[in-house]
Every structure is written in C-alpha cells, then in structure tokens.
C-alpha cells in the first residue's frame, strides 16, 4: 500500500493506494478467474478509528482512497488494514507528517 498522510491545522488528509486487482464477478467470468476484491478498509491512529469503508467490486483496480479526519496527529502513526473477499488482509502504516 502506498500511504501519504499530512496534518495541517488539526486536519489530517490521507491518500491511500492499495495494490489489488479488484476483479469483479463480470471480469472474473470473462477471464476464467475467481472474483476477488477489497471488501473492507479500516484506518486507525492508536486505538481510534479514523476511517472506515465497506467496499465492492466496483472500485477501480489498485483502489485509491482519500479521506480526512480531525485531531492533533502529527508524528503519530496511521495504520490501515484492508480485507478482501478471499479473506486475505494486509496492514500498512505511515507516520503522519
């Protein structure tokens, strides 16, 4: 995952790009593969949830997500986890600038 997170005046803007084929059922059928896509993304700073998305097959390949949240978070770590349809999960973190 590529993560960029920056705080300015108490607002953190995060840009995330996950590496995932996001294979929809239609695409999978055409290619003779299994459908698989990210179904859930959660971002935390410490114990606090700062972003949450339940997602579908209709997000683009290598999905890009941008979100904002409040708080004095400079220097803290933003931890992002996604789960896909196959049950695989991936977690990455990045220090908020």
């Amino acid at each position, binding site marked *: 995952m590529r993560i960029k997170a920056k705080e300015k005046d108490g607002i953190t803007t995060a840009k995330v790009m996950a590496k995932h084929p996001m294979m929809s059922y*239609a695409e999978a059928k055409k290619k003779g593969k299994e459908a698989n896509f990210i179904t859930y993304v959660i971002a935390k700073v410490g114990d606090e949830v*700062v972003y949450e*998305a339940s997602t579908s*097959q*209709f*997000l683009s390949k290598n999905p*890009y997500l*941008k979100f*904002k*949240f409040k708080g004095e978070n400079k220097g803290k770590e933003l931890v992002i986890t996604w789960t896909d349809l196959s049950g695989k999960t991936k977690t990455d973190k990045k220090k908020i600038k």
Partner: protein
Amino acid sequence: MERRKFLGLGAGILAATMIPAGLSAQNYRETKVDVWKVKNEKDKPGVDAAIKALFGTDKVEDGKVKLKAPDIAENGAVIPVTLKAEGASRLALFQDANPESLVAVFDVPKNGIPDYSLRIKLQKTGTVVAVAEIDGKLYKASKVVKVTIGGCGG
C-alpha cells in the same frame, strides 16, 4: 406461555441488530449481506431498493450532499468520485450502470470528516448517486457520468 417466550426472544434479537452506527466499527459486508446483491435490472435501476435495504427507508431528500464526478469518463475503469456532506454519520455511493447498485458504504467515525474520494468502475453511461445520513435523515445527490469505454469487463 410459549408464545410469550418466543416474542421476548424476538425482541432481544431485534435489539441486538439495532446497535446504532458509529459506536463501533462495522463491516457492512458482514452486517448487511443482502444490500450488496441488489441488482440493476434493465429499465429498473436498483438504486432505490439498495438505499432502502441499507438505510431501512427510501425517504430521501435532495441536497446537503456534494457529489463530484466527471461529466464524461473516457475510461470507465477509473472514475474519480468525491462525496462530501457536512455532519454526516454515514455516506454511501450507488450507481445504475453495473450489475449491482451499491459501490461503497462509509461509517464516519467521531473525528472523521465526511469528505471522501475514491475511484470507481462503470460498465457504461449511468447515474452515480451519493446518499448521506445527517441527524437521522437521508439526503442525496446524483450525477450522470457518460462513459465512452466501459470498465467492468463489459
């Protein structure tokens, strides 16, 4: 006596499923399995049905939500969309161009700012609909996106 017991049990289950959104993390893939299956039929988009399945009502007013999407997308596989709704506790994105209607659901956490962007796929030209829940009421915004090359294997 049996009946009473049964009713009591039902009320308990109902209470358990009515945990308000926002209190804890929620994966709608697990809590609302059926909403993801609402189909866009030919001549009958599933957007309204999906809104009802997700929020429990289809009473939706226009306004309060800002939806940003291109007028024309040359590539239906990568369409940038931004949803913005001040004070929203929940945001959801739908469309009527793909086999199913629902694209994504966001529970906005306590310190979250409902100003979210993502990139989506549209198989063909269609209407993208953003719905926000603000103080228990639903608001929506829609936008037609013209797709010149489809992006869902279609």
